[in-house]
């Protein structure tokens, strides 16, 4: 029976759809091993003293929230567990919403955390790297108010923060430009602020050269797998962990597709040779 390429495509789509769906309905419960770059990020947050002010930049939108939102939630939770205070900023307009959603979700678990004292959302700014550089000189000129329109000087958390240099570390959760790269260039390489990143898996290999002897990047979380590893380090079964079974099954399926595709190509080549 000969199947045309359009039908073949549709079969692939349906099989993938089912392969991803089934483990969501019937979880398997595989566990992950923690990779070194995730451990580095965890250690950086863990070794930061209590009371420190840290900055999370939400440089993504809902399209990549499946990968990045679990990271955001885990990182804020880790910082709050260590009594660190969190500033949220966004170089992407929809990042503001992502930050708010993460804080709202965690406030259910940590109701004592207070806006303006333990965390603040400073909102979105255009300009990417130029804006980060401006933050390195004077935060207030870039963020005159937070998203609730409270003036910078009236926010208790920001009393000790004049510029980026007063922040212990920056973690950019980034789905593209502007994002981690701009934070490395503007915050670390210019002002010496520690920078780590969380990114979509597709971008992760491109950021690895920054984890080097110059410490341009202190750690990197790449994709859903890294998010699940961070949840594992925190000892929680979060949104990333529950999705990893589906992820793993889909990976195996893609490998099966590659194998079938190659066998088919090999047979085709052979039959052509025989034809000659």
């Amino acid at each position: 029976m000969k199947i045309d390429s359009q039908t073949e495509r549709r079969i692939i789509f349906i099989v993938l759809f089912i392969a991803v769906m089934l483990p969501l309905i019937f979880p398997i419960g595989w566990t992950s091993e923690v990779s070194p770059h995730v451990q580095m990020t965890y250690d950086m947050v863990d070794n930061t003293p209590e009371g420190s002010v840290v900055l999370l930049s939400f440089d993504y939108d809902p399209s990549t929230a499946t990968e990045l939102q679990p990271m955001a939630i885990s990182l804020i939770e880790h910082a709050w567990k260590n009594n660190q205070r969190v500033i949220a900023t966004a170089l992407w307009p929809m990042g503001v919403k992502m930050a708010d959603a993460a804080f709202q979700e965690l406030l259910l678990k940590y109701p004592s955390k207070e806006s303006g004292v333990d965390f603040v959302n400073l909102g979105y700014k255009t300009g990417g790297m130029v804006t980060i550089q401006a933050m390195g000189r004077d935060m207030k000129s870039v963020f005159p108010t937070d998203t609730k329109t409270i003036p910078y000087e009236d926010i208790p958390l920001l009393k000790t923060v004049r510029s980026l240099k007063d922040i212990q570390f920056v973690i950019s959760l980034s789905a593209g430009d502007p994002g981690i790269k701009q934070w490395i260039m503007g915050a670390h390489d210019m002002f010496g602020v520690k920078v780590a990143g969380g990114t979509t898996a597709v971008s992760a290999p491109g950021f690895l050269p920054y984890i080097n002897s110059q410490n341009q990047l202190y750690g990197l979380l790449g994709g859903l797998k890294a998010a699940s590893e961070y949840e594992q380090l925190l000892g929680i079964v979060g949104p990333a962990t529950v999705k990893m079974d589906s992820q793993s099954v889909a990976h195996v399926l893609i490998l099966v597709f590659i194998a079938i595709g190659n066998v088919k190509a090999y047979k085709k080549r052979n039959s052509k040779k025989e034809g000659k």
Partner: protein
Amino acid sequence: MKRTIPLLITFIVGLIVISSEFIPHRPFSMINSTLENWYLSISGFAIVLGLLSLVQVNSSKVYHKAENWQYSLASLVSLVVIVIFGVLWGMEDQRGILGNGEAISAFIGKKPFDYLFDNGITPLSSTMFSLLAFFIASAAYRAFIIRSFESNLLMITAVIVILGRTSFGPMLTSWLPKSLSFLHLPNLTDFILTYPSSAAQRAILMSASLGIIGSSLRIIIGLERSYLGSDE
């Protein structure tokens, strides 16, 4: 003249920014930080320009009843609706010109702008990108074929990484003795990413940076002028 002055402005501004890196004192540092703050606002207007251009293109399609004009109308209507909601009642903690819209928020559970974000933008944008999963599966089947030594390298690395980054992969090689632990799939994946893959990525980064530095210089000294558009 209409091009000479802008070229001169680019040159002077670029020169000030570069000088302030090497002379971090007044007046350069002050001018530089002023320029940074201006950039924030002016680039904001640049985005507004892009949006207005989108409105212009779509309005023209609707007005001239071009092919598929109905879809342009859908785009315009959604843009106008979300903007009106945002202007009238704001979003989240931000007030609009009519305040916080308590009555309407009580009716729908949140501000109308936020409602559109949660039920419109979020599903649309995440589904749009999730389509790529199907296409990459199809590409893996059709195009990921061994043809040469180079494609072998590509394939072997991809297979190791795809397996190494699953929860299931480590189980395949967990039986390996400690002396061969570097062949354990997650370790092998980390090795590939940290060394050979990073080396190639670094080569790309460094080569691209040289290109960016070169083209930046060309813009500053006025050899590259295409960003200013035509002479009109």
